């Protein structure tokens, strides 16, 4: 089930909220677990089994790790086993065919592909369970004795499918005891509705432009640029909109999930971009891969290896395809180059730094979206006039005209400017009064228009489902 759908908004959500707030405190986690499993099974009934298996192994190994905390070898064994089961399940479901395809390509054999359908959200909940057992092993968290509580953490529907990647330590205390207040619920409601509007009104509409580009037989250099910019804005609004909805729902249910985006497009370098983009994934790799490998407190060659490993894994996490691996390595190269050579120069000119960053991020997302490595180079080459395409085409002009306002709203909306304007207005006495009315009215308008798009059955995929 996706958040931006009629069944979720007008059937599932009111039901879960009503039941959750009616039952006594002791049953709230059970309610969350039951509804979350139902939410998951709605999209993939078969794969609920994978999730339950993942929860059970995390629960059992968590207890075993804690029980044998003082016996280092046993602790390491159980930690290793838990990680192996989690990663094994992920590799089997997500990467098996990739490895078989490449093995066949290298050896000339033709081993049959397994054709496994990727269970939704497996990359996210695998990383959550990994962080749980590793943190228990490190002594950063106590093992959860109540399987329902652990189940509610792993399966919690707001962040189940597309993050943010909530670590157990982020919400361990709230799983046992959390407060619900008018302020928090209102904050959550605002955040959810804004996320919904970002997803439905901007991301989904730009997806139609992107699809039109892909289907077009009238491509041009201008059209490739329009597509590349639209895709960058689209992926930000799609993913950050989903994170906003997840964080908002978390607040309604009394949780404080970590932020996942912090206006990444205002960054002035690739390094800064990754501090602002998909922050929970970046920090996960930092804490569970990069730092354990020695981070940057090692020799330069080893540091380069650490960087390459982390970015290889970051790319590979996004998808079982060479385009994703190349995408990760592209950022590895960019970050290394920045750190070794020119980050200090970038910091001197904000304007040039922005141009530099936007250019590289746009190119990176063109690579990210390409169906193959060959197509990726073709698209990137076309951006710079190397594809033999005309400079301008009729369709490019039409779609640019038709989507100009959406693109402008998207570009401005991906900066802190709207937030600052609202804050500025809210500071004055009169402004404060206006906002008292304007804010609920604006939220209502966003809900109504988003509902209009959903009721009309507009294009509505969630990009990060496949991860």
């Amino acid at each position, binding site marked *: 089930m996706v958040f931006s759908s009629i069944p979720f908004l007008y059937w599932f959500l009111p039901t879960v909220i009503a039941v959750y707030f009616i039952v006594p405190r002791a049953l709230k986690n059970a309610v969350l677990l039951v509804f979350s499993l139902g939410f998951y099974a709605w999209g993939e009934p078969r794969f609920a089994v994978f999730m339950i298996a993942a929860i059970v192994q995390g629960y059992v190994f968590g207890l075993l790790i804690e029980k044998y905390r003082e016996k280092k070898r046993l602790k390491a064994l159980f930690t290793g086993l838990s990680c192996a089961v989690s990663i094994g399940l992920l590799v089997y479901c997500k990467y098996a065919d990739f490895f078989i395809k490449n093995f066949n390509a290298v050896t000339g054999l033709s081993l049959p592909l397994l054709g496994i359908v990727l269970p939704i959200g497996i990359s996210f909940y695998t990383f959550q369970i990994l962080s749980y057992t590793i943190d228990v092993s490190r002594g950063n968290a106590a093992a959860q004795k109540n399987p329902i509580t652990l189940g509610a953490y792993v399966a919690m529907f707001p962040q189940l499918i597309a993050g943010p990647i909530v670590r157990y330590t982020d919400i361990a205390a709230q799983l046992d005891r959390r407060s619900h207040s*008018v*302020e928090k619920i*209102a904050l959550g409601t605002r955040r959810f509705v804004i996320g919904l509007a970002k997803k439905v009104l901007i991301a989904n509409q730009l997806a139609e432009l992107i699809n039109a580009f892909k289907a077009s037989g009238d491509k041009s250099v201008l059209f490739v640029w329009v597509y590349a910019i639209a895709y960058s804005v689209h992926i930000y609004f799609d993913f950050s909109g989903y994170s906003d909805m997840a964080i908002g729902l978390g607040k309604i249910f009394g949780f404080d999930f970590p932020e996942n985006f912090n206006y990444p497009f205002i960054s002035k370098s690739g390094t800064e971009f990754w501090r602002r983009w998909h922050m929970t994934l970046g920090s996960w790799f930092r804490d569970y891969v990069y730092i354990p490998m020695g981070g940057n407190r090692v020799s330069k060659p080893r540091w380069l290896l650490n960087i390459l490993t982390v970015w290889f894994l970051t790319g590979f996490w996004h998808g079982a395809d060479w385009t994703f691996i190349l995408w990760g390595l592209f950022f590895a190269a960019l970050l290394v180059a920045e750190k070794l050579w020119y980050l200090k120069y970038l910091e001197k000119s904000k304007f040039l730094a922005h141009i530099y960053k936007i250019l590289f991020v746009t190119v990176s997302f063109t690579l990210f979206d390409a169906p193959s490595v060959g197509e990726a180079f073709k698209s990137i080459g076309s951006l710079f006039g190397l594809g033999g395409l005309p400079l301008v085409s009729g369709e490019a*002009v039409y779609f640019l005209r038709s989507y100009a306002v959406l693109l402008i709203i998207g570009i401005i909306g991906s900066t802190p400017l709207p937030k600052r304007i609202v804050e500025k207005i809210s500071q004055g006495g009169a402004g404060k009064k206006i906002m008292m009315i304007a804010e609920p009215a604006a939220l209502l308008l966003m*809900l109504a228009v988003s509902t209009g798009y959903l*009721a009309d059955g507009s294009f509505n995929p969630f990009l990060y489902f496949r991860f």
Partner: protein
Amino acid sequence: MTQKTKNIAVILTAALWIFGLSLWGIFAPDAETSLSERRRLAQAPKLTAENLVSGKFMSDFEKYSADQFPLRDGFRRIKAYAEYYGFWQLDSNGIYFKDGYASKLEYPLNEAALTNVSNKINYIYDEYIKDGGGKVFLSVIPDKNCFLAPDAGYPCLDSEKMVNTLRESVPFAEYIDIFPTLDISDYYTTDTHWRQEKIIDTARTLAEAMGAEIGGEYTEKALDAPFYGVYSGQSALPLKGESLIYLESPAINGMTAYNFETDAYGGVYDFDAASGTDPYEIFLSGPRSLMTVENPAAKDKGELIIFRDSFGSSIAPLLAEGYSKVTLVDIRYLASARLGQFVDFDGADVLFLYSTLVLNNGEVMQ
């Protein structure tokens, strides 16, 4: 008002909206059809173990919940307003407005569809017409985009290329060019179709090219209710109704139409259909697989077989004045391979008359 009051207002607003529409959706009776969209709406799916495990229940429920959403037409209208006036998009669901006319984007040229059409025409010619002795004609009806899109910068298919490709692929057919007889004012503003009262010249051009003679004196009659074309519903905007006019003459009034699907006789104008979901179906009952029109007043005893789409329904009564019998075949609904069972091609002239819209979606030709 304090911050707390504002928070309460935010929660109450959202809760009333979501819970209110949720309860409304649950308790309101389900509708069978959408008049504005001219389609049947999804109904509540059956809850069975098999449907649940396969996921069919869920996918059907998603369609059902969107189709049966309270005030759905109103919400669709909100969406249309947001697209046209909020985001200044040039089209909504592919529909755009130019010079007061609504039209739907149709591009690019679908060569696979065109190939299918020409294959079907060739098959029909080889199988039924070649040895029948009648003449074969081909004509293409421009859709509204041909007049509206190019100057306004909307993408549109290359109709000239379409016609040339089709002509080359059916060399046995004599092409009749009706493009010069038409302009945008010959079409309804809210519908895809042409207006019958504006295509007398077009009918005359076709008839003359086929060697038939048709009259020229008609009386215009209008339906009582305003006509809201297919784009009214699809655009979801409150478009102004138009007057649907049909032509009468002594010859037309004397014609008898036979519908093979219902095995029923009637006039060329179906007034029951005129009060249905698509009033344009007044013309020969709309999309029907096979019809015949007999004209007892015909001077010429010749017969004409028209392979047509819905544009053909409104011009057929005019063309029928020049023939004793006109057979209308729609191979979107009747397989070409079965034509021999129903249609006698012996000695009859044949006209393949299709709009660019249908040609560009010609995969549906059977």
